[in-house]
Structure formats: structure tokens, C-alpha cells
């Protein structure tokens, strides 16, 4: 992959943005000029845009990380990217804007061009939408990726979500993931745009593998007889959301929950009432890479206790089903090779509400709050 970057922006302040800032109203003209310049040397450039991506960062360092992520996913989900660094009033006054056209030649497939705009602003929170709106490409959906923990009760949050079609967070990057997950769940009930958590997206292959055994014998229809769920979670909110998924899809009611914390790990223990009796769950934080390291289910089948186990050796997942009188089935499947490690590209391809996630969020939050009550 090679690239040419044409830029404006504060000299030396952001990698790749080398010229002076431009006015907010000049951004589109400047980008258009840049495209024409590049066309002179490379032929006609077609800007690829399927959405607007507003990235909310709390400082310049996080904006650099965000730009690196956008760079990696640009070829898969090319967007007009607006990186918003909202600083508290009093630092520097007003709005400073940098813009550039990014051109990439992937190893395979067509060349992709997209726009990046960085806005550093100290305008009052209630006017932030007025900063963002002129920078959006018309009529394309607006995805707002909030890096870190959003201020759920703040004016900034309500102002920016009001102009968004989808709010994307990564609960693994929250400052206090379990507690903030509970806050997210409360905020979600009043949220107008659709909501995504990248952690939920990273759980998708796990959910697929855990759901599949219930499609056929010997466990067809046995979903109501899950007796225990044990989760080892590198990202605690992933474990909580997975339990929330079981609970919301299978109609479980939370009977008891408690947090057993020790210096090495946290463990959420819970007991659920299910249509077929009761289920014990245990979510333990663990060290490692990825989202989860292991999920193990015990399920009562017609012939005795069956087991479903999904584990994550590097690069793939292994699902093993053992049932009395049956040949053990084991399958290894690929994990998505994500150009962006957090899985943002997947969220940028969702346009409607993710109702399964929203439903899972409530019991997940209830479990998370077991540690705080």
C-alpha cells in the first residue's frame, strides 16, 4: 500500500497535516482543490464515501490514535472522517481546522480516496453541533465514534448524539468498564441514534459458535436447559454482555448476583431463573489477548449432561461439543482478520438499530451493578 497525502493544518502538530489551519467554511473547497491537484498527477480521483464518521477525542494524543485507526479501516469503510477534539473553554479559543485528502492503493482492488478533517474546538458544548454540521457530506449517515468514556450526562453528549445516526463506543476503553457499561445502559434508554459497542461486535463469532449447537441434535431445543455458563473475559464488559445476551434471548431473570473481587481478578457470580429451571453463571476477568479466552456451557440433554466449549487460541476459535452417546464435534473457525483491531469497520456497516444488543445491555448492566450495590 502506498499513499500520497495532501494537507493543510498546523505545522507539525498532527502527522501528515503540515500546512496552516483553514477556516471551517473553506474545508470543502480545499479538499476539492487537493483532489484536482492529485488528478493532475494520478488521473481522475473518485472520492469513496458511504458515511460520515465523526470521531470524538478528548485530546490530541487520542486523535492521533483515532486517525491511525481510520487509516487502517479507510479502505474497507471509506468515510468523510471528522475528528473532533473538544477541549474545555479557556485553553485556546475558537475553532481550528485541518483537512487532507487521503489516497491509498491497496494490494488488490481499486484505489480508494477519502477525506479527513481535524477540528480542535473550545466552543461551548451546546454549539458543538454547529461546528460539526457544516463538515458533513450531505445525506450520508452520521456515525459518531466516541473514543474513551462518553460523558453520558453532559451537554456535549446530548449535543453530538442529536446529530448522529449511530453512536459507537468501545466499552473496553471505558475508564471503569463495568460501571460505565451500566451508565451506558441507562443512557441508552433515552438515546435517539442507534447504539453500537465494538465489544459486542467482537463477540459476534463467539455468539455464532455458542448458538450453532442448538440448531441440531442432540441439543436442539435444549437452550432452556442451560445449567451453567462460565466465561473467562479479557475484556470484562464482553463477559457481561455475553451473559446479557443469554439472559435477554432466553428470557432469564436475575435472581442473585454478587461480585467476588480479589487482587488478581474480578468474578461476577449470578443465579438466573430460566424457563427450564435455573442457571448459574460465572464471569471471571482473565489476562490474555482478544476479547474472551473461554466460554463453557453445561446443558442438560435428553441423554445426560452435554458440554459446549469455545476457546480462543491465537488467530482462531475452537468450538467443542460433547454429548453422551455422540461423537465429540470440534471445529476450528477463522477469526475475522480485522484491519482495525477494535472492529470499528463492522459497526460502520450497520445502519439500523441493533435490537439484540440493546436488549442484552440491560441484563448485562444489572449484572455489572452487582459489584456496586
Amino acid at each position, binding site marked *: 500500500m502506498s499513499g500520497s497525502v495532501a494537507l493543510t493544518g498546523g505545522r507539525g502538530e498532527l502527522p501528515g497535516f503540515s500546512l496552516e489551519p483553514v477556516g471551517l467554511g473553506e474545508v470543502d473547497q480545499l479538499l476539492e482543490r487537493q483532489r484536482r491537484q492529485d488528478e493532475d498527477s494520478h488521473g481522475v480521483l*473518485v472520492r469513496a464515501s458511504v458515511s460520515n464518521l465523526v470521531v470524538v477525542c478528548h485530546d490530541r494524543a487520542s486523535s492521533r490514535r483515532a486517525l491511525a485507526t481510520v487509516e487502517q479501516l479507510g479502505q474497507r469503510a471509506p468515510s468523510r472522517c471528522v475528528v473532533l477534539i473538544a477541549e474545555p473553554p479557556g485553553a485556546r479559543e475558537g475553532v481550528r481546522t485541518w483537512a487532507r485528502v487521503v489516497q491509498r492503493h491497496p494490494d488488490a482492488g481499486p484505489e480508494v480516496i477519502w477525506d479527513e478533517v481535524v477540528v480542535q474546538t473550545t466552543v461551548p458544548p451546546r454549539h458543538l453541533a454547529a461546528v460539526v454540521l457544516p463538515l458533513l457530506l450531505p445525506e450520508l449517515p452520521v456515525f459518531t465514534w466516541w473514543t474513551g468514556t462518553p460523558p453520558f450526562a453532559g451537554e456535549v453528549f446530548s449535543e453530538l448524539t442529536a446529530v448522529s445516526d449511530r453512536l459507537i463506543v468501545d466499552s473496553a476503553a471505558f475508564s471503569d468498564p463495568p460501571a460505565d457499561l451500566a451508565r451506558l445502559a441507562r443512557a441508552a434508554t433515552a438515546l435517539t441514534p442507534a447504539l453500537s459497542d465494538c465489544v459486542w461486535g467482537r463477540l*459476534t463469532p463467539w*455468539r455464532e459458535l455458542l448458538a450453532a449447537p442448538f440448531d*441440531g441434535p442432540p441439543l436442539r431445543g435444549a437452550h432452556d436447559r442451560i445449567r451453567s455458563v462460565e466465561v473467562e473475559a479479557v475484556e470484562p464488559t464482553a463477559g457481561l454482555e455475553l451473559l446479557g445476551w443469554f439472559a435477554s434471548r432466553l428470557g432469564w431473570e436475575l435472581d442473585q448476583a454478587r461480585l467476588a473481587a480479589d487482587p488478581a481478578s474480578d468474578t461476577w457470580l449470578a443465579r438466573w431463573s430460566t424457563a427450564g429451571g435455573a442457571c448459574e453463571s460465572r464471569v471471571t476477568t482473565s489476562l490474555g489477548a482478544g476479547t474472551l479466552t473461554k466460554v463453557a456451557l453445561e446443558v442438560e440433554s435428553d441423554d445426560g449432561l452435554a458440554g459446549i466449549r469455545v476457546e480462543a487460541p491465537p488467530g482462531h476459535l475452537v468450538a467443542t461439543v460433547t454429548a453422551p452417546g455422540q461423537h465429540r464435534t470440534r471445529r*476450528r473457525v477463522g477469526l475475522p482478520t480485522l484491519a482495525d483491531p477494535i472492529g470499528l469497520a463492522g459497526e460502520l456497516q450497520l445502519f439500523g438499530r441493533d435490537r439484540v444488543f440493546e436488549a442484552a445491555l440491560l441484563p448485562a448492566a444489572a449484572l455489572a451493578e452487582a459489584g456496586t450495590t
Partner: protein
Amino acid sequence: MSASNPLVVGERMRATPPPTAMVIFGGSGDLAHRKIVPALYNLELHRLLPQNFQVVGSSRTAFSDEEYRRDMRKAVEEFSRTQPIQQQVWESFASRLHYVTGSSTDPGTPARVGDLLDQFDAERGTDGNRLFYLSLIPKLFPETVRGIGKSGIGGRGWDRGWSRVVCEKPFGHDLESAKELQALLTKVFPEPDVFRIDHYLGKESVQNIIAFRFANGIFEPVWNHHYVDHVQVTVAESIGIEHRGNFYETAGAIRDIIQNHALQVLALVAMEPPGTFEPEDVRNEKAKVLKALRRLEGEALDAAVVRGQYGPGWVDGHQVPGYREEPDVAPDSVVETYVAAEFLVDNWRWAGTPFYLRTGKRLPKRATEVVVQFKAAPHLPFGQTAQDGLEPNALVLRIQPDEGITMKFGAKVPGPSLEVRSVNMDFSYGTSFADDLPDAYERLLLDVMVGDPTLFPRWDSVEEAWRVVQPILDRWAGSDPPELPNYAAGEWGPKAADELIARHRPGRRWRRP
């Protein structure tokens, strides 16, 4: 995917099929190597196969399970769209691959396959669901299908799960043989369990014809004879017959492409909007179009169909031989490597609007596309010089290789005078949806497993397509061919094809892909 499994209802995750045991008759053959097994590997890689899934390859070549797995590993390394092969996933996938040696026409083979399938049902939860893939040369179809029926391993009366059969094209050699094959198949399998693969219909860009037409409100009102001057369907190949002389000598371009791919694409372009996207609604509308195609006969047929054969020439910068110099081709062969034909759809929507189909080997480039050529504006006020560069609007649905859509419209040339010329507005899949497009076989295999026949031609469509093509075959069989070869490799077909498209309206021309 089972609707009774609440863990999959409403999920963003993709539908996975129910437990399945798949049998590939012709399991060591070319198609299994190039398409079927690589597609299955990619489905496994992307977590789209069911947990309980087993494959049995079967053919005359003697293999143990391990030898078969090694052979298929090489095939996947060579032909998989995803590379490199993920070792762990391959090992897992390979453990589901099994092999039974024996000709599919040997009565003992289906029985041995059946024993293995029973074992899978008992021990590996395949649930009695059986998919029989006939990856065979057509002459082996009848005995193989009879064998399945006689041995009771699937087909009518099978009640331990579902059983489906997949047939590769060609579906018959002519109308009569297609009917015979259909009678045989449906004696063993009911029509809803017969899946005839036309891999063109599994291509994303072919499915996008339906999405484009019926998800957008602005095109359908002009999608008729009032606004459309004519439609072109082009299936152009730059390759020759690729060592398939024996096959091609008995097929020709009209059987190989027009009878199936091209007419199926025509049906998608011309069909009425279905009430729902339920399989039978879509298939009903497609069948109606094929029934409405005017049958050609006599001199009208001669005037509406052009055949050609390539001579020596240059393609892709290489000198290539003519068709008659290809291996296994008769030196005086009159088999057509090119066909262009004009068809009329006799219904209210398309009355009088010609559909031009063309296909050929050794054309200048590989391209499949549909061109909807609109009528010119009724009055152009700009003066002749000012509009010299202006052509009527055209909508081009590019199916391969650069999947996308092009709209041609007039725009003012910048400058002091009012000159207009045609410009193209391009949509490319590659820049809006940067994900790799799955191979057509992946989509179609999944559809068979979930029992969705939407993208598979139903018998009445196949029969109607043969009814369209058969008079042409008969006419050609009873008349002298034109002087062949009549186009050089690397040219866009014989001159007669240009004359064909312009015969009713001078100025009509084939779009150059």
C-alpha cells in the same frame, strides 16, 4: 438456521444452515477441486457452516480419507479466494472430509455412501439432512440419480430429514434430453428438492440487478418500452476453449452461455416486480419473461441470429490459434464460438423493445454487462454542432470483472458556448463496499443447505429457455453455416453482429465494454 433457536433470532450474525451431510459425486473431479471444496473451506473459515457438517467425496479414483484430504488441500491452496490457507481451520475442515471410492453408477457405491451417512447421523448429529451434489459429466447423471433412489439414501420417501440434489449445467443437451433428465430427476426427487446451479445467479452483481431495480423508485417508471430503446446483454470472454475441445465441440456458445447464463440475466432485467422476495414469487416472474420471449423461426430466425467462430489472432498481447486449430477440435468444425441474437419479449412492458444478447470466446476482453439503452430526448435544442458528443442515456450494469453501475448522461462542456457531451457517472462496488465479494458457489451452497431456491432456475424456466434455443439449433442443423471463421481472435465478433443490432435503427451499436 433454525427458527426455533432463540439465540439466532434477530441477530446481526449471518444465517447458518442446519446440520448437513453433503455427498459430492465426482468428488475428485475438476469442479470439486476448483470450486466446490474451496467454497466449503471459505464457508468454514467465515463460520458459515453448521456445527454438524460432514462431506463425502465419491468417485472412481481410489483414495483413502487421508489421500483425499491431501488432494483437496492442494486444490484449496490453488483455488481458494482467501490465501494463505489457515492451517488450524484447514485441519478442522479436513476432519469433516471423507471419501468413498466407487463409480457413482456402480450400484454398490450409493449403499456404501449411505452407510457412512447413517453413521454421521448417529454419531455426528447430521440429523438426516442430505445434500447430493452431482459434479459429474451429464451422461452419468441418470444412473447416479437412479442409484440414490434405489438405495434409499435420499429422494422421495426420505423422512429422516431433508434430501436435496444439486445439478450442474448443462441441464440437457437439447429440449428433449432436458425433459428426459427432468423426468428422471423428479422420479427420484420432488421438484422443490432439485437445485439446478447456474453460478451466474450466485454472483453478487447479478443479484444486484434485482436490488437495483426493486429497491429504487426512480428507475422502475422508465423501465419499459416507452423509455427504453433496447437492452444489450454481453457475456464476453477473452479466453478460448481452454483444453475443453471435446466438450465445446458438442456444445457451442449457444448451449454454453445463451441457453442458461444470458437468458437468466435477461429474465432478471425484464421481469415484473415480484410481490415478495419469496423464492416462488421471484421464480414465477422470471418464468413469465422466458415464456413471453418470441420464438424465432425460418428466415426471421436467420435475420435475428448471428453465429461466428474465431480464427487466429492476438489476445492480451499473445498470438493465439483459431478455434479449428485448438486441440480436440475438428479442422472443419462449424461449431459456433460466438452468438449474437435479437429477442423480443411479447408483453405489455417490453412490446417492440429488442433485447440483444451476445457471447463469444476470444473477444478482446472479459466482460459481462447489461446495457439499458434509453431513447433519445424527444427534442434537442442545442444545434447539431453543439451536441455532436451527445448520446442517448444509458445505464450499464457491470457484472464482471469491475462490478458496478455506470449511468451515461449529457452535461455541458465548460466554456462560453452551450456544448453538451456525454459523461459517465460510475458506481463501483470496490469503492463503496470494500469487502471481498464471496464466490458465487459459497452463496449457492449455503442456499441449498438452508433450502432457498430463489437463485436456482426452476424447471419451467429451464424448459422455456430450451424452447427459445431449440429452434435455433434445429435451423442451424439444417442449413449451411456462414463462412467460418468469420472473426479474428481479439476482435469483437463478426461484422454481421454489428449489422444485426443496427438493422432496425441505424446508429444502434454494441457498447464497447
